[in-house]
């Protein structure tokens, strides 16, 4: 998985793949209505599959903010 590959590249990145139906409280908390849904540092949410350059841009955005 892309997020897992990114975790390999940086000691600062941790990446979880979460089965939404087994953790309904989290699916509810992060408003998971469609999958995949990516959540970065609790705040940034991305719906749908994310291409590599876009996900990297989103990660850098989190750092800039």
């Amino acid at each position, binding site marked *: 998985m892309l997020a*897992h590959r*990114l975790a390999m*590249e940086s000691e600062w990145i941790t*990446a*979880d*793949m979460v089965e939404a139906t087994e*953790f309904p409280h989290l699916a509810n908390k*992060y408003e998971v209505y469609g*999958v995949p849904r990516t959540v970065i540092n609790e705040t940034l949410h991305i719906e749908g599959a994310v291409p590599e350059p876009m996900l990297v841009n989103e990660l850098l955005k989190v750092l800039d903010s």
Partner: protein
Amino acid sequence: MPLLNDKIQTEVRKALQSMAGPVKLVMFTQASNALECQMCSETRALVEEIAALSPAGRLSVEVYDFLADQAATEQYKVDKIPAIAVVGAQDYGIRFYGIPSGYEFSSLMDDIVTVSKAESGLSAATKAAVAKINRPVHIQVYVTPT
């Protein structure tokens, strides 16, 4: 009865042949009164079946109890179960929560081989960008089995 049928077992065995170095699947479950939560016991059975299909000594499984094995739970920063950490030359921070079936199963197989090679396979541009990160970033990807 095995969780993986003959066809999948053959595919898994073939995929694991390309493992370069050893990988450890660190699995967190919970047992109380000898009753393991259903998805936990199935997840444990699944990782044990996968490990049995790897070349000798390449893929191993470590099982911890989420509540009883506090030190391991803290070391791997696991906050829910069932959980699997895919650990290679180092712990890269790769976690699966819930049983890895369907789409997640493919991801797990892909991760095992990638981690065994200690090479992410990402583009040079991505590696350069990610190298700039100097604060903790936690990525969660929510998926469903199909």
